[in-house]
Each structure stands twice: as structure tokens, then as C-alpha cells.
């Protein structure tokens, strides 16, 4: 608790902050009473601080001023900031200061006043890096929580949209906001999310990926938590009854539950004509299967079931393989691993060097390796198509890479039987996932006919607009509603 003697309070705050250099204590006298304005360097806006705090305080002139009168004046009339709160302990003072507040302590009172004058440097709102679109807003989430909240609120000007602020991480004290549409989202879902966040055991939360595992249900392969950089996508998910989490410091907002089929939907599907949306969705599904299966299927057929390959193609494959020193499986593994190395290198390197890596990789693989007869051209084609296809469903690109590798091994070692067993295991693994009461694989399994209007096909808005979507329509329990 705070003491009535200002000096004692400032000493305590300093000791709590371990005399950190970024703690700023500004002493002054207002109407003859000593005050101290505490703030954290870099967290406040100097203009706001001057206009909202220093100037009113310096111009204040109260006759017969007592600490209580001054405190009452400051809290009641003097300060006009959008965010004010009283603080009563040194820890609260420190927490408020580090969150961009300035805290006014008055000698002779045991209550301080925190005034929101946040003004730290943030990145401006720009186009999302990972979730680009052709038609639609060019705004993506940024790192600052309040900006992200404003991006969401701007799209839903309804009291139905509710934000619940929390702080997670014992050390980092990261602010997060749980968002939901009050009338649509199931209350139990929001409560469960809040419960999980409250019991978060982490002391440091730097990114949404830190808390994502605690919202998942320990599925080894697929995540049941969605992440998006786009406020418009985030809002649409909330509108379907999901609960979202925005994390300070991360441009990725999370939402639960997420279904497998959502990986194949993008915002552009809803802005284009339904026919084209249907076409491109089918292409995405095909690309997904090509990405995970093509090299594995190729090795399985080439090794164990060549009779399944059309005659003319088989002859070309056999001729190509006759020139290479390695087995089909070895070639496939080498190429796939080499591709993954290049991808990783390209991701981490500065963009200038990244281009160079791409060019070198293209020349090495595309020309020298094939020309030298180390790898067959058809195999290179299969791996290349699979690799490119993997990016079409970018949200699960890592899972696709892993599954592709498993399929290569399964197909190369055991043929179609191996592919079958691997498929069964992946399917069972995906189908066993229940994301907050909604099966991860719905509306495919369990099948929901009603939801098919926005799964492979995207019905026109004339149809979609009739009823509000609800994520819990997909839980396979339609029978109950009939």
C-alpha cells in the first residue's frame, strides 16, 4: 500500500523498479503541495504528457489547498484523459507506468492517479504480409493492442462486440484482449478461453504463438486455433460465433475454434463471383492433395505399381530413371530435403540475399542436378509441383511439408499400402480433434449438408445472407435440431 509521505512512496517505487534507468520521476509543487509525476521513458507521448498533465498542473491555483482538495481537484476536474484510474500500491504504479500511463502522487495522500498518455512508437497499419488478397481492405493487424482493437471495432459498430482485457505472463505482463460477439458466441466458449488464459503458466509472452498451444487440444498434427493478420477475417470469424484473442506485441490475432476446411477459404472467395470462388476452392483442394501426395504417390507407383502409370508416361519415367544413379526414393528424399533447406534459407535471409539463394537453387536443381543425371526430370517436376502447391494453403504449409515427407517414405518403402496406412493415421488423427465441441473435420466428417453451401462451393450472398452462420451448426448434431 502507498504511504502518505511522498518521499517514502517514490523510494518504494524506485526499489520495486530496481532503480531502472527508464523510470522518470518528476517532482514539483502545486499550490504549495509536493507532487511527483512518475512515468516510463519511451512509453508516453511527450505532447500528451505536457498538455494533459504538466500544463493543467502548473496552471492550477487553489486557495487554502490541502492534499485532499488537490487530489479531489486532480481526479475530478483537472485531468481530462481518455484513460484514468486510481492506483493504491507501488506495484500498480509500476505496472501502469510501464503500460504508458503517468502516475501522479501527491504528498499527504495514499492514492495516486494514473493517466493514460501512451505514446510509444508503433508500426503504422500496413498491408498484411502473409494474408494478402486481391480485393478488400489493405489493413493488417499491427503490434499495438489498442490499434488492433480499433481496427476490429471500426468494422463492428455494435455493442454486441465485447472486448475483455487481461494481462498474461508474470514477467512480460502482456496485455491481451478476448473478443466475442455477445449474442452469437456461446458463453461457455468465451469462459473456457478466458479460463485457459488465466491459468497460463508462461512468464513471458512475446507473440501469439506462445499462447496458441494452451488454446489447443494437443493434436499432434493440426492446430485447432486459427491465426490471422486480417481484421476483416477476424471480424468474420467472430460473427460466426468464434472467440478471438488479440495479443499486444503480435500482428497475429487468434480465434477458436478453427476447422480444417477453413484452410481453403480466403477473403477473396467472398468478394468474387461464386462460380470463380468454387473453381478456385477446388483448385486449392487439389493443390493440397498434390502437395502432400504427389511425390509419395510417384515413388510408390514407380517402385511398386508401375502398371498404374499410363504407358507413354511410364516409358518416359523409366528412361529418365535409367540415367540416374540413385533409387527413386533416395532421389525424392534428397530433392525434398534440399527444397526444405532452400525454403528455410530463403525465409531467414535478408531479401537481397534470399533472391540470390533462389537463383542459385534454381540453377543447381533445375539445370545442373538434372543435366548431371543425378536426379530424374520427372521426379524434379513432381517435387516442384508439390512444393509450389504447398503454398496455396499457406496456413498449414508446415504440416503439408511434414505430411509430404511421411508420404514419400511410406510410398517409397511400402507402396500404396504405405500410403494407405499413412492416410489412415493422418485421417484418424485429424478426425479425433474436437475444437471446443466442434469436430475439426466438420462439415465433412461429420457431414453437414447445410454447411456445404460454403465449403467446396460458395453460395451467392443472396443465399448466404438469409441466415446468420454459426460455427455450432457444424458439430454434426443437426439431427438434434430437426
Amino acid at each position, binding site marked *: 500500500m502507498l504511504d502518505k509521505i511522498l518521499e517514502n512512496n517514490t523510494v518504494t517505487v524506485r526499489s520495486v523498479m530496481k532503480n531502472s534507468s527508464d523510470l522518470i520521476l518528476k517532482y514539483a509543487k502545486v499550490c504549495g503541495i509536493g507532487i511527483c509525476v512518475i512515468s516510463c521513458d519511451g512509453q508516453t507521448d511527450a505532447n500528451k504528457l505536457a498538455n494533459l498533465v504538466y500544463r493543467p498542473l502548473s496552471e492550477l491555483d487553489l486557495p487554502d489547498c490541502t492534499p485532499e482538495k488537490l487530489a479531489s481537484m486532480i481526479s475530478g476536474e483537472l485531468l481530462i484523459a481518455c484513460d484514468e484510474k486510481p492506483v493504491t500500491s507501488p506495484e500498480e504504479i509500476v505496472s501502469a507506468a510501464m503500460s504508458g500511463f503517468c502516475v501522479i502522487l501527491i504528498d499527504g495522500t495514499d492514492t495516486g492517479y494514473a493517466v493514460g498518455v501512451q505514446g510509444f512508437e508503433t508500426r503504422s497499419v500496413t498491408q498484411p504480409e502473409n494474408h494478402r488478397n486481391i480485393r478488400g481492405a489493405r489493413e493488417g493487424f499491427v503490434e499495438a493492442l489498442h490499434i488492433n482493437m480499433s481496427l476490429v471495432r471500426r468494422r463492428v459498430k455494435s455493442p454486441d462486440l465485447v472486448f475483455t482485457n487481461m494481462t498474461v505472463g508474470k514477467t512480460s505482463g502482456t496485455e491481451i484482449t478476448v473478443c466475442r460477439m455477445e449474442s452469437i458466441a456461446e458463453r461457455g466458449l468465451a469462459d473456457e478461453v478466458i479460463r485457459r488464459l488465466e491459468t497460463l503458466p508462461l512468464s513471458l509472452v512475446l507473440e501469439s504463438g506462445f499462447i496458441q498451444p494452451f488454446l489447443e487440444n494437443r493434436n*499432434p*498434427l493440426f492446430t485447432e486455433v486459427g491465426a490471422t493478420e486480417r481484421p476483416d477475417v477476424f471480424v468474420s470469424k467472430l460473427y460466426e460465433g468464434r472467440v478471438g484473442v488479440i495479443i499486444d506485441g503480435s500482428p497475429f490475432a487468434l480465434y477458436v475454434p478453427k476447422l480444417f476446411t477453413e484452410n481453403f477459404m480466403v477473403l477473396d472467395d467472398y468478394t468474387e463471383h461464386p462460380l470463380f470462388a468454387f473453381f478456385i476452392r477446388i483448385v486449392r483442394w487439389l493443390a493440397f492433395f498434390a502437395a502432400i501426395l504427389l511425390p509419395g504417390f510417384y515413388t510408390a507407383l*514407380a*517402385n*511398386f*505399381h*508401375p*502398371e498404374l502409370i499410363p*504407358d*507413354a508416361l*511410364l*516409358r*518416359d*519415367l*523409366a*528412361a*529418365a*530413371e*535409367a*540415367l*540416374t544413379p540413385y*533409387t*527413386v526414393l533416395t532421389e525424392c528424399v534428397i530433392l525434398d530435403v534440399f527444397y526444405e533447406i532452400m525454403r528455410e534459407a530463403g525465409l531467414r535471409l535478408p531479401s537481397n540475399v534470399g533472391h540470390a539463394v533462389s537463383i542459385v537453387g534454381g540453377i543447381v536443381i533445375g539445370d545442373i542436378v*538434372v*543435366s548431371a*543425371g543425378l536426379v*530424374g*526430370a520427372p521426379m524434379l517436376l513432381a517435387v516442384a509441383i508439390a512444393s509450389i502447391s504447398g503454398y496455396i494453403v499457406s496456413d498449414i504449409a508446415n504440416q503439408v511439408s511434414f505430411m509430404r515427407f*511421411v508420404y514419400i*517414405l*511410406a510410398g517409397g*518403402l*511400402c*507402396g500404396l*499400402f*504405405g500410403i494407405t*496406412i499413412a492416410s489412415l*493415421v493422418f485421417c484418424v*488423427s485429424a478426425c479425433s480433434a474436437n475444437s471446443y465441441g466442434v469436430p475439426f473435420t466438420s462439415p465433412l466428417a461429420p457431414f453437414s449438408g447445410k454447411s456445404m453451401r460454403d465449403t467446396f462451393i460458395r453460395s451467392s450472398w443472396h443465399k448466404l445472407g438469409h441466415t446468420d452462420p454459426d460455427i455450432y451448426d457444424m458439430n454434426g448434431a443437426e439431427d438434434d435440431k430437426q
Partner: protein
Amino acid sequence: MKKLAVLLAAVMTLSGCIPHPELDRIGIAEAVGVDFDGSVYTVTVQFFNTDSTGGITAIDSSAPNVNISRAGGKTIESALEELSHRSGHNIMLGSASVIVFGEGALTDLRDSLDLCVSHYSSNMRAYVCAAEGSAADIMNIRFNEGNASVEKLKEMIGNSRDLGMSRPVILYEAAGKLREPTESAVLPLLRVYGSGSGDTEEGKSIIIRGGALCVCGSLPERLTEAETAGLQLLDPGSDGSGDCRVTITHRGSDIRADMFGIRSRITPSLNGDRLRIDVEISAHCKLVSTSLPDPYAAGTDMERLCGQELSERAYTALEATLKRYGADVVGLSYAIRSQSPEIWETIKDDYGEYLRNSEISVSCSVSAERFGLTG
């Protein structure tokens, strides 16, 4: 994740359990010839030569596109094993698209066809043909064109169907027909001839001349070209289009007619103790290369002449197969069963004899759709 790792480890540990040859060690059989001399089966296989084409480097266009290998054995399986041993390749029959049986092997095709059909990787769509003489002679012909010799042979078989000369028979169809004692199959008959053209290194080529009538468990019979052409009218087959070309003579000039949309309907009935078979054929025709001054005025004559030609072909074919050999090659038993089950019950035990004594009547209606440009 742990479970996935365990599964992956189990699969990898057991990976050596499934033996398989690498793709470049497989001899991709394109055509197979089977001969039988009464005691030994000789199998001749044309398999793909990987040096000839494909890939992106080291193409040697002068190399033959197929290799030929031959081996014998007590059974076809043992002959194939011997052949794999000699050629150094694991012969894969799964992509063989033409199977040719020599005269000796045609006597009873049941075992041979069963072997092909029962193997899980067999190509059920392979063409089954008969060789005039030895199948090995046919297999020795290597066409230079394309990247597989067999492509040319397949084209020939396909063309013979398009021209209405002979109907191709597919493996599963042959296996089905030659298994049932009430049915028979006519296989296209291949013959080697010296063409003198540059199609092959040897200056020889293959021609399809007539068909070999194979009856379950009996010696094959030779059918003429006209007879095989007639059979195609009655049973165009699964991938047949029911087309043919005929040449008719009208007032001293030869006119070629393209017949298309040929349909036939066979109506069986019992006339006393004899089976009566009424065949109705309908077709459309397009007349080409006509030199008639007014072809439209002669349209009715043209239709009649075309109809006569088709009727004769069909009658000749039916007479040769049904009456001469008592062989059902056009699926007549299916027609009798579906249209007159009671007749089938009466005749099924002595089906061949009923066919031999059958009465055949063929009628044909042709409608001329249009005339050629020269008309």
C-alpha cells in the same frame, strides 16, 4: 507425435519386407507372343529399351525402341521366369498392350488367359490377337516409328476396326468368352509380310488378314476377311464405333460408302426343332468419291445396294461361324436368354448343334445421310 514416430519407425523397420525392382531394372513388356509346340511354351516379349528415348539427356535415337527376348518353359510362368533370367530385367506384363498367340497356343487359351486375368497387375485392356504361324515372328517385327514399336501395331488393330475389317478383342473379353462353352471369340489374325518399306529394319511389316475363330477347347478355325468384317457389324465390341466402309458398284462405277451408326438386333425364335435367327441391321451412310451425275436421284438405289452389301457380309459371317462351326461369337446366347428364356432352357444343353442347324435371316436398312463433295 510420439505415436506417429512409432508408426513411422515400424514402417521403416519393415520396409525391406516388400521386394521390388527399381523402375530402371524393370523390363516394361509392350507386346507378348506365346507359342506352344505341344510340350513347351515359348514366350517372346518386346520390352522397352530405355536407351532409345525419354529423359532429357543421352537420347540415342538410332537405338531400337524395343528389345526382344525369348525363352521357353513347361508353363507360361516358367517361360517368363526364364525370360527374366536371360534378359536381366524383371519383366512386367502389366503394361503389355498386345498379346499374340501362335497357332499352337490357340488350341486352348483358357489357361493362358486365366493366367493373365488372375494376375493383379495384368493389363485387362490388352488386345488379344492370333498369329498366322508363329507368334515369335510377329514379335520379331520392330517398328521404328514412335518411342514404342507396339504403338504402331495398336494403331493397325484400331484402324482395322475403324475400316470395318476386324474387331479387336480385349483381354478380359476374350477370357470371358473363351471360358464359357457356349461362346467363342474371333481374334484378329496377324500375318508377317515383306512390305519393303522403311517401317522396320528388316523391311517386313504386319498385316491383319481375317480372324482366328477360337472355341473353348478346340482347334482354331480360320475366318476370311469378309467373314470377320461381317462379324463386326453384328458385334461392334466395347470400344467399337459400329462403323465400316464398303465399295458398291452402280452402273459400272465404284462408289465408296462410309457406313456409320450401325446397329444390329438379333431376334431368336424356335421354328420347330430349329433355331431361327432374325437379324435386323440399320445403318446410316455417307457416300464419297461418287461420280454419279445426280447422286440424289440415285439415293434409293445407293441405300439398297449398301443394305445388300451389309446383309451379305452379316450373312456370310453368321453362316461361317454358326452353321459351319456351331460357334457363338456375337453374344447370341445373351440375346436368347434375355429375349426368350424359355428357348434358352430348351437349347442350352445342345447349343452348338442348334447353331449348326439354325436358320438365318438378315435384313438391312440403310439411310443415306449425305453425299461426298465430288457429287
